[in-house]
C-alpha cells in the first residue's frame, strides 16, 4: 500500500512516482541554470581541440604507426583519444551534477521547500541521483559519439569490440563517480566544500595514493577507485591487456618500482563496490542529517 489518500481528492503518489517527479524538476533546473550547457560546451571544446589537432597534425601517437595492422592502429586511436580523456569528462560530470546536489539543499535552503512534504528523503535522494546520472550520461554519450565519428573518418566502420567494452566500463565508472560525489554532497552542508573535496580527491588524491602505494610500498592499490577505472584504458591497449604486476628496473642498483594494473573483473568489482558503498552511505547520511 503505497498511496495515501488525503482530502480533498489528493492522493499522495507512490515513492517511485515521487522519484520521477524529483528527477523531472531537478533536470529542469539543470537546463535552466545552464550547468548542463556549460558542461556540454566544455566537452565540445575538448572534442574540438582533439579533432583539430589530430586532423591537422595527424600524429602517430593518435593514429598509430602506418606500418602496423589496421586493428592495432584503431586500438591506438581509441586508446589515446577515448582512454585518455573520458575519465576526465566523467569526473567533470560528477562534479557538475552531483557535487552540490545534496549539500545545496542545506546551504541554499531549498530543502526547507521540498523535505517538509509527504515525500521520503530517499525519494528525493534517488530522484536527484538519477537526474544527475542521466544528465552526465547525455554528456558522456555526446563525447563517445564524437570519438566514434572521428574513428569512422580515419578508419571506416571498423570500431573495435574493445571500444564497446571500454564504453560500458566507463559508464559503470560514471555511476561510481556519481555515488562518491553524492556521498560527499551528503557529508557536507556547504556546496563549495563538497565540490572542492570531490574535485581534489578525483583529480589528485586518488592518483597520488595509487602511485605512492604501488611504487613505494609495492602494494596493489585495489582500494582506490581510479585504480579500478584503469580497465577503461587498459582494455584498449594496442599491445594487449597489460600485465597485472609490472616491475620496472630503475637505475643501476637493482632497484625496481612496481606498477599494477587491475584485471577486468577486479576493476569491475572495485567500481561496483564503490558505487554500492557510497550510494548506501550517502543515502544514510541524508536520511539522518538535520536541517538546522
Amino acid at each position, binding site marked *: 500500500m503505497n*498511496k*495515501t*489518500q*488525503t*482530502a*480533498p*481528492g*489528493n*492522493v*499522495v*503518489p507512490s*515513492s517511485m512516482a*515521487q522519484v520521477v*517527479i*524529483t528527477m523531472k*524538476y531537478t533536470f*529542469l*533546473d539543470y537546463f*535552466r*541554470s545552464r550547468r548542463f550547457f556549460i558542461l556540454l560546451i566544455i566537452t565540445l571544446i575538448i572534442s574540438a581541440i582533439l579533432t583539430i589537432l589530430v586532423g591537422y597534425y595527424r600524429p602517430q601517437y593518435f593514429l598509430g604507426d602506418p606500418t602496423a595492422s589496421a586493428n592495432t592502429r584503431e586500438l591506438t586511436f581509441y586508446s589515446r583519444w577515448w582512454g585518455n580523456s573520458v575519465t576526465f569528462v566523467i569526473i567533470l560530470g560528477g562534479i557538475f551534477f552531483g557535487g552540490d546536489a545534496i549539500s545545496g539543499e542545506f546551504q*541554499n*535552503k*531549498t*530543502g*526547507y*521547500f*521540498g*523535505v*517538509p*512534504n*509527504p*515525500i*521520503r*528523503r530517499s525519494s528525493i535522494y534517488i530522484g536527484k541521483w538519477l537526474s544527475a546520472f542521466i544528465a552526465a550520461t547525455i554528456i558522456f554519450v555526446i563525447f563517445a559519439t564524437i570519438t566514434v565519428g572521428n574513428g569512422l573518418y580515419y578508419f571506416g566502420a571498423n570500431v573495435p569490440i574493445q571500444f564497446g567494452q571500454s564504453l560500458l566500463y566507463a559508464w559503470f565508472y560514471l555511476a561510481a563517480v556519481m555515488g562518491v560525489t553524492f556521498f560527499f554532497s551528503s557529508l557536507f552542508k556547504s556546496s563549495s566544500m563538497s565540490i572542492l573535496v570531490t574535485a581534489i580527491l578525483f583529480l589528485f588524491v586518488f592518483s597520488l595514493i595509487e602511485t605512492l602505494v604501488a611504487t613505494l610500498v609495492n602494494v596493489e592499490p585495489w582500494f582506490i577507485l581510479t585504480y579500478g577505472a584503469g580497465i577503461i584504458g587498459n582494455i584498449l591497449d594496442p599491445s594487449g591487456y597489460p600485465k597485472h604486476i609490472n616491475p620496472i628496473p630503475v637505475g643501476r642498483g637493482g632497484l625496481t618500482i612496481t606498477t599494477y594494473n587491475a584485471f577486468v573483473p577486479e576493476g569491475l568489482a572495485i567500481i561496483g563496490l564503490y558505487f554500492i558503498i557510497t550510494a548506501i552511505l550517502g543515502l544514510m547520511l541524508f536520511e*539522518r542529517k*538535520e*536541517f*538546522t
Partner: protein
Amino acid sequence: MFTDLIRPSSGQALINGVNVHTNKKRALASVGSLIETPEIYSSLTAREGLMMIAEIRGVPRAERNKRIEEAVSEVRMEEWIDKRIGKFSKGMKQRICIASALLSQPDILLLDEPSNGLDPRGMSEVRDIIKSLKNKKRLIFMSSHILSEVSEVCDEVAMIDHGKLIVYDTIPNVTAKFMGGGNVVEVGLQHPIDAGFVAKSIAHLPGVVAAERKDERNIRITFKGDLESQARILSELVSMNIGVVSYKPATSELEDAYLKLIKETV
C-alpha cells in the same frame, strides 16, 4: 520535528496520531507547512515550483493549475506566477512558499517563524495573509519568537521554555493570569509627568488596577473591565489636562506575561 527536518532527542512527533518519522508520507499528507524562509530553485518560475509541490502532494492533475492559481491569488502574487523565482524579493518568495503550503488545501498549517528575516513590509504582508487564512476553518500552528506577532495573529498560545511546555491557554487568559487580571494600555503625554501624580491620582481612578510611569512622557495603566472602562479612563485622563497624545493597548502584554512566567519558573 513535525516536518522531518530535525529529529527528537527523545519522544515522538505525532500528527493525528501518526508518527512523522516512521510514517512521514501519511503523517504529512494533510499538513501544509512553511518552515522559516525556504528557497525554491531560482531557475524555476513560481508556477513550476508550485507544480512540483502539487505533484508531490498528489493534487489531482485536472485541478493542479486551478489550485495553483487560487493559492497564488490568496497570497496576492498573480502577476508574478510565470516569472522566475530568482528575481523575487525575500517577501515575495515567502508568499510563494505560503501558497505552496496551501496548495493541497490541508487541514493543518504549520508555520515556523514565517516572518523571520523579512523586512517590515514583508512581515506585515505575511501577517495579513495568515490572518486571512484564520477565517477558512484551518488549524494554524505557528511558532514565533516575536510575541507581538503572536498576539496579533493567534487565538491560543503555548509557551515553551528549555523544551518544556509551561503554559497553554487563550491569549486573554494567559495575559490576564500573569498581568494581575487586567488589560493594559500605554498612554503617551505631551508634557513630562510626575511619578507621585501617577501613583496618587491616576492609580486611583475607578477600574484602574495599577499605574506606573515608564518614563517622563509615558505611563502604563492596568485596568479591569471592557472597552467601556477603557473609554471612561481615557476621558478621565483627558479631563486631568495632562496632555494625552496617544492611548493604545500595550503590544507587549504577552511579552510581559512571558517574562513573568519565566521568572516564576526559574
